[in-house]
């Protein structure tokens, strides 16, 4: 830790560059015509357009939610452009036809798209503004029957699958931001793991916002058939800009009998500067449905970026004996605000859920854990274990915990633990007295605090998460 992380800690947000590329942008504003344009650009079938329009009409009747513990100025939805794509039309069948500028952009982000350069064992879908520009290892995956492609492509190529599951976990009118996403979503990933297949590679999508005054509205759908397994990772970043940009994504997961989906996120959107100028509004709806018996969905998230984070990846535990897990590290530094947590809805018998949440606040950051555990009437012998730990660095930040528990079956077993600690002068002094620098000391203490979550991440990403944490907390201790 002393070597590499110390060097990293001294760096500012390093993904803040802008790619200079000709972009096809739909003018700002939102109405039915804009939605028709998006649908047309994606060469979508009629049913998709109808679904979008239904969502849009619902959205018009909905109000932006303000119950979360965050504050921000009004968002002008008519000032946002809902579609931006690099002009050189990307062709997915060959990387040679992808604009070299895009390949270079992803290289700079540490996501080389040429397969020979890739980390062994990881297939990547790269999304740039509103379009997927490349998906690697498609052939390797196809041999096992695994489908991994841009969702816009899936809508054209696998309409039956998409139609069956799209909106089945997060309906088009689920909430304000989900409805907006349903109306205007542009790209995202689709993964389908056939019956009995253990996906041979980690699947991964990297989202990059580049254009200014645009929002990114991606939609991801993962379906794991009976007895299959997949591990999926999502990463993201954006340029440094003074304006706030909206990112309203929807992720839906479906696990059938004995299937398992492991979904990991490393969220590193631009967090804004020290004074709170700029940064991404990350308003995201993520939900998984354990539809089958003995199925399992596990969410792991490391949230270091964004000016505001509003997300509650949850699990609907419908199948008997199904398992839901949520492991989270959320960091807020400077003026960042996070209101994040999970929802575990127990419907089936003997369903189990585990929640481990670690919130770290530094600077003037505000960090809120908000979680709901709901045990429905039919959920005999359901069990939940929740652990919410908060760590404060400095005396101008805040940590808040709102655990909601709703139990409607008396056979349920619930455990809840919570703690708040402060990185103390004594702890840092102890490390320094052993020769460690202040940065290394904080890194060590924070990484130790997050260990239970990091051990859930795939190996390479755990290293990445530790490194990001160091960068996010830069300058938080003198």
């Amino acid at each position, binding site marked *: 830790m002393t*070597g590499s992380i110390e060097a990293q800690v001294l760096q500012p947000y390093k993904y803040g560059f802008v790619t200079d590329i000709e972009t096809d942008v739909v003018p700002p504003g939102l109405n039915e015509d804009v939605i028709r344009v998006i649908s047309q650009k994606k060469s979508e079938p009629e049913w998709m357009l109808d679904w979008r329009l239904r969502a849009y009409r619902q959205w018009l009747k909905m109000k932006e939610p303000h119950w979360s513990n965050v504050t921000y100025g009004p968002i002008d939805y008519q000032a946002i452009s809902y579609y931006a794509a690099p002009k050189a039309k990307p062709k997915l069948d060959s990387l040679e036809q992808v604009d070299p500028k895009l390949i270079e952009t992803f290289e700079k982000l540490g996501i080389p798209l040429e397969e020979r350069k890739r980390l062994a064992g990881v297939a990547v879908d790269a999304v740039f503004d509103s379009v997927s520009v490349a998906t690697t290892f498609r052939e390797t995956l196809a041999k096992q029957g695994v489908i991994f492609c841009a969702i816009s492509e899936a809508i054209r190529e696998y309409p039956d699958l998409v139609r069956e599951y799209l909106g089945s976990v997060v309906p088009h009118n689920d909430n304000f931001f989900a409805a907006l996403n349903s109306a205007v979503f542009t790209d995202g990933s689709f993964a389908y793991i056939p019956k009995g297949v253990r996906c041979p590679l980690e699947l991964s999508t990297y989202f990059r916002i580049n254009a200014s005054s645009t929002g990114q509205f991606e939609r991801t759908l993962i379906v794991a058939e009976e007895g299959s397994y997949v591990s999926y990772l999502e990463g993201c970043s954006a340029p440094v800009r003074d304006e706030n940009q909206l990112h309203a994504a929807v992720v839906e997961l479906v696990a059938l009998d004995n299937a398992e989906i492991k979904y990991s996120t490393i969220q590193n959107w631009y967090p804004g500067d020290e004074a709170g100028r700029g940064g991404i509004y990350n308003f995201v709806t993520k939900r998984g449905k354990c539809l089958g018996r003995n199925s399992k969905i596990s969410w792991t998230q490391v949230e270091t970026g964004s000016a505001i984070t509003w997300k509650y990846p949850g699990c609907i535990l419908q199948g008997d004996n199904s398992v839901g897990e949520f492991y989270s590290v959320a960091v807020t530094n400077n003026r960042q605000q996070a209101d994040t947590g999970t929802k575990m809805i127990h419907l089936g018998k003997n369903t189990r859920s585990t929640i481990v949440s670690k919130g770290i606040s530094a600077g003037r950051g505000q960090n809120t854990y908000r979680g709901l555990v709901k045990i429905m009437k039919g959920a005999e012998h359901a069990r939940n274990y929740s652990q919410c730990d908060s760590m404060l660095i400095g005396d101008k930040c805040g940590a808040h915990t709102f655990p909601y528990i709703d139990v409607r079956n008396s056979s349920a077993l619930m455990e809840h633990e919570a703690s708040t600690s402060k990185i103390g002068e004594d702890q840092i002094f102890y490390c*320094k007295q052993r020769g460690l620098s202040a940065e*290394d000391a904080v890194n060590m203490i924070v990484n130790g605090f997050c260990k239970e979550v990091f051990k859930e991440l795939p190996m390479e990403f755990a290293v990445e998460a530790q490194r990001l944490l160091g960068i996010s907390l830069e300058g938080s201790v003198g």
Partner: protein
Amino acid sequence: MTRRATRETGRALLEVRNLHAAVEGREILRGVDLLVNVGEVHAVMGPNGSGKSTLAQVLGGHPAYSVTEGSVLYQGKDLLAMKPEERAREGVFLAFQYPVAIRGITNAYFLRSALNALRKARGEQELGPVEFMDALEDKLKVIGWDDSYLSRPVNDGFSGGEKKRNEILQLAVLEPKLAILDETDSGLDIDALKTVAHTVDRLRRPDSATVLVTHYYRILTHITPDFVHVLSGGRIVKSGAKELALELEEKGYDWLREEAAVG
């Protein structure tokens, strides 16, 4: 008298002159003078509240204490101008009276990070996990531990005695030039005390020195100090050879306080 004698024989490692220090605006140290040469063991004794731990913390560089007057030279350099981590890298080690726990970080990782920070500062190659474990084996034996302690989080869930032993393990691994032991003996049962004392004794080297801050005589039956100092009211009121410790054991501290008040 004693001090003059040491100055002739030894090489000064630590020179504390007229040291005044305060915490939260309260002056605790009121003119401490202390000279420690290489190869020596000094015991600093005194009643509760005399400033013993403050002296140890100030030498270690704890930010809560401010030095209001005086100077400290370490190897001829201004110790007070150095950050705590710089002091550590120059070979100053403070064994804490209340060692701090670090959740989720294993003892082995912490020890290796600390050792590598010192090695890096000295321009030496950092040790990888395997090399480090090899180097650690003997040190563990010295304090009578098996390697199960290495995979436990630093001081987390350790008993009082285990925490103190852990400090001594760190001492053994980091091999400082100046070891300051802040009441490492308090709260230890007889066996633990013996182990700790013998370890410290075994680690004595001709080019290093130890300052043993203690309330009790009993550790001095296992480690023979070259000098004993009595701290009272923020000053060293008496210095002598090891016999002074025995005298304190018999007579307590009150007579010294009176003597100091009169003198």
